[in-house]
C-alpha cells in the first residue's frame, strides 16, 4: 500500500451543547492518496462538513471535543498545536465552500484576497510576485482578462466566476489536499459541470488529492476514485466508486441511489425517496442508526435494533459496509431493487408515512 497523503482514523468530533452532546462525527476512518479523489456523500446533517472542517482545524477547536487521528503526510493534526495546523492550512491543505457569494470578503478585491493567501505562506514574496501569482492563478481557473479583473471586487463576478476565484485562491500555494465542500450546490446547473471539470483538470495538473463533498451521488460518480457514504456521523459504506455503483451494499446507499434520477439506469425508473428524516445526533438510535428508516431491518432478527453494525469488509475486496445483512442477502435485495421492486415489508406503511411528513 503506498503512503497515504491523508489518513483519518477513528475520528470523533463532538460538540457539547445545552441540549446534550452532539456527536457530529463518530468514528470515521478513511485514507486518501495523492492525485486521487474521495467523494463523501450523505444527507444533510450527516457530518460531512464537520469532518472536513475538522481536518482543516476549523471546527471551533476550543468548544469541540476531537479524538482520533488525522495524519497529513504522516503528521497527526489532532495532536498538533493550533499554530502548526494554521501553518498547514492554506499551504498543504485548502478548502472551498458551498456558497461562493458569501465566502469572499465583499470589501477587498479578489486580487487582494488571493495575494493575502499567497503571502501568508510565502512571507518572502514581494507584492509584485504575489500579484503575478494571483493573475496566473486567475488565468488558470479560466477568468478572462485576469490582469484587469484581479482588481475587481467579488460583487462584480457571477456565482460561477466567484467559485473559480475561490479555487484559484485555494490552489495558489499548491496544496497537496483540496477539500471541496459542496462546491456546486449554490450554482446554476449549467455552471456546475464546468466547475467540476475545472477541479478535475486542476487536480491532474497539480497532482493534489481531492475530497469532494456532496449529497448528490451523481456528482461523485464521475469524479471520485473512492466513495465514503456517511450517515449520522458514521461511515455506512466505504469503497471504490466502481464497486459502490456496481454493487452498493448498504440499504442507505440504495436509498440514495434510488432517489437519484439517472439516465444510465433506466431500470430504476421509479424514484424512491428514503422514508423519514435523519436522526438527531444527540440521541442517535441504538443499534444501527439507520434502522428506523430501513426497509430491511426485520431481516436481521432484531440485531439491527440492538447491535451497532461494524464497518466490515465481508468479501475482502476493500469494499466496506456497516450492515448486518449477509453479503448474499445484500446482493439479492439490491438485485430486486435494481429491477424496480421496492420491498413491501412490514414497516413500509410507517416508513412511507414518515416520508410524507418529512
Amino acid at each position: 500500500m503506498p503512503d497515504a497523503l491523508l489518513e483519518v482514523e477513528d475520528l470523533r468530533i463532538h460538540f457539547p451543547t445545552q441540549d446534550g452532546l452532539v456527536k457530529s462525527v463518530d468514528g470515521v476512518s478513511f485514507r486518501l492518496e495523492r492525485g486521487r479523489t474521495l467523494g463523501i456523500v450523505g444527507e444533510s446533517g450527516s457530518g460531512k462538513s464537520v469532518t472536513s472542517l475538522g481536518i482543516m482545524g476549523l471546527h471551533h477547536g476550543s468548544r469541540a471535543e476531537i479524538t482520533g487521528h488525522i495524519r497529513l503526510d504522516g503528521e497527526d493534526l489532532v495532536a498538533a498545536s493550533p499554530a502548526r495546523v494554521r501553518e498547514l492550512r492554506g499551504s498543504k491543505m485548502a478548502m472551498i465552500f458551498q456558497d461562493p457569494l458569501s465566502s469572499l470578503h465583499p470589501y477587498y478585491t479578489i486580487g487582494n484576497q488571493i495575494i493575502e493567501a499567497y503571502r501568508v505562506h510565502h512571507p518572502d514574496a514581494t507584492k509584485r510576485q504575489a500579484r503575478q501569482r494571483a493573475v496566473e492563478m486567475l488565468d488558470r481557473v479560466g477568468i478572462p482578462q485576469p490582469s484587469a479583473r484581479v482588481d475587481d471586487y467579488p460583487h462584480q463576478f457571477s456565482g460561477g466566476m466567484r467559485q473559480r476565484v475561490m479555487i484559484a485562491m485555494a490552489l495558489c500555494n499548491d496544496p497537496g489536499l483540496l477539500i471541496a465542500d459542496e462546491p456546486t450546490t449554490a450554482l446554476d446547473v449549467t455552471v456546475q459541470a464546468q466547475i467540476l471539470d475545472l477541479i478535475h483538470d486542476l487536480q491532474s495538473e497539480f497532482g493534489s488529492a481531492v475530497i469532494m463533498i456532496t449529497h448528490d451521488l451523481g456528482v461523485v460518480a464521475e469524479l471520485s476514485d473512492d466513495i465514503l457514504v456517511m450517515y449520522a456521523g458514521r461511515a455506512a459504506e466505504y469503497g471504490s466508486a466502481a464497486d459502490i455503483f456496481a454493487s452498493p451494499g448498504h440499504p442507505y446507499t440504495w436509498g440514495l441511489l434510488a432517489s437519484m434520477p439517472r439516465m444510465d439506469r433506466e431500470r430504476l425508473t421509479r424514484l424512491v425517496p428514503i422514508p423519514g428524516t435523519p436522526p438527531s445526533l444527540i440521541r442517535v438510535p441504538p443499534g444501527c442508526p439507520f434502522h428506523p428508516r430501513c426497509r430491511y431491518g426485520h431481516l436481521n432478527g432484531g440485531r439491527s435494533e440492538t447491535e451497532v453494525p461494524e464497518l466490515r469488509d465481508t468479501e475482502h475486496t476493500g469494499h466496506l459496509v456497516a450492515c448486518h445483512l449477509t453479503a448474499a442477502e445484500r446482493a439479492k435485495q439490491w438485485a430486486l431493487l435494481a429491477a424496480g421492486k421496492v420491498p413491501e415489508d412490514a414497516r413500509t406503511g410507517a416508513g412511507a408515512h414518515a416520508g410524507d411528513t418529512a
Partner: protein
Amino acid sequence: MVTFIIRRLVGTIFLLIVVSMITFAIFFLIPRLAGQNTYQLAAQYVGRNPTRPAVLAVERQLGLADPLYLQYGRFLRGILFGAHYRSGPDVTYCPPPCFGYSFRSQLPVWPQMISDVPVTLSLAIGASILWLIGGVSIGVLSALRKGTLFDRFSMGIALAGVSLPVFFTGLISLELFSYKWPLFPNVQYVPITSNPVEWARNLVLPWIVLAFLYAALYARLTRAGMLETMSEDYIRTARAKGLPERKVIVKHGLRAALTPIVTIFGMDLGLLLGGAIITEVTFSLHGLGLFTVQAVNNQDLPEILGVTMLAAFFIVIANLVVDIFYAVVDPRVRF
C-alpha cells in the same frame, strides 16, 4: 469615485435648501397656518413684554406682511449675502450669514452663535474619540470572549451606561472629583489657543461623562456587529487560508463590523455638534447647547432659528461625510 462625490455634493446642497425651507416653514408658515396673523407673529420677534409700536416696527422691518416666497427669498439671501435692515432713517447691515438680530442683546445672531462653537467642538471631538476607542475595543473584546466574566461584566456596565442620564453621572462626577477630591476644580472652558493644558484639564470630566454614555452604546453595538461578522462565511475563508487569528479578526472581522458603527458615529457626532445640551448645562460650558437653552428660555426666536439651522447644517454635513466614507470602505456602494 469623483463622480460619486460630486453627485453627493449636489445632493447635499439640495438637502440644505430643503432644510432651510423646512426651518423657514416651521418659524413663519406653520404659525400662520395655525391662525396667527402677522401682528401676532411679529409680537414673538420682539421678545418678552412687547409694546404695540415695537411690534409694528418689527412687522414692517421683517416684512411679515409680504408673500411667503418673498420672505423666504429674503431669508435665504440674508444667509447667503447678508441683509439690510431699515429701522426709521438708519439702515443696519447684517453681514452674511445673517440670521437677524437677537432680541435681548440686539447683536447679530451669527457671531454670537459662532463664538460658542469651539466649546461644543472641543467637547464633542474629545468625547467622541474617547467613546469610539473605548466602546469599540470593549465591544470587540466582549464579542471574542463571549459568555466569559469579562463579557458579562462589561456588558453590565454598558447597560448601566446606556441607562444612566448624563445629568446624573455628570453631577456625581462633579461632586466627587471637583468638590470632594478637587482633581478638576472650577470646571470652565479655556480656549485651546490660550492654554492647551488647561483646555484639556477642564474638559476631562465632561469628556468622560459624555463618552461614558456613548461608549456604552457603542460597546453593545460593536459586540453585536462583531458576533455577526465573525460568523460570516468569509471569516471561515480567511481562516482556511491560514491567516493568523489577529489578522482574521482585525482585517476581515472588524473592518466589516466597523462600517455601520462609523455610520452611526458620524450621525452622532453631527448631532452633538449642534450642542451637547445636557452636558453643557451640567458643567456650565458655554457651547451651542447652552446657547440653545438660553435662547429658548428667552423666547429669542432669531437665535432659535439660527441655532436650528446650524444644527441641521452639521447633521447634513455629517451625512455627507458618512456617505463618502461608506463608499470608500464598501466597494458595492460605489457602483
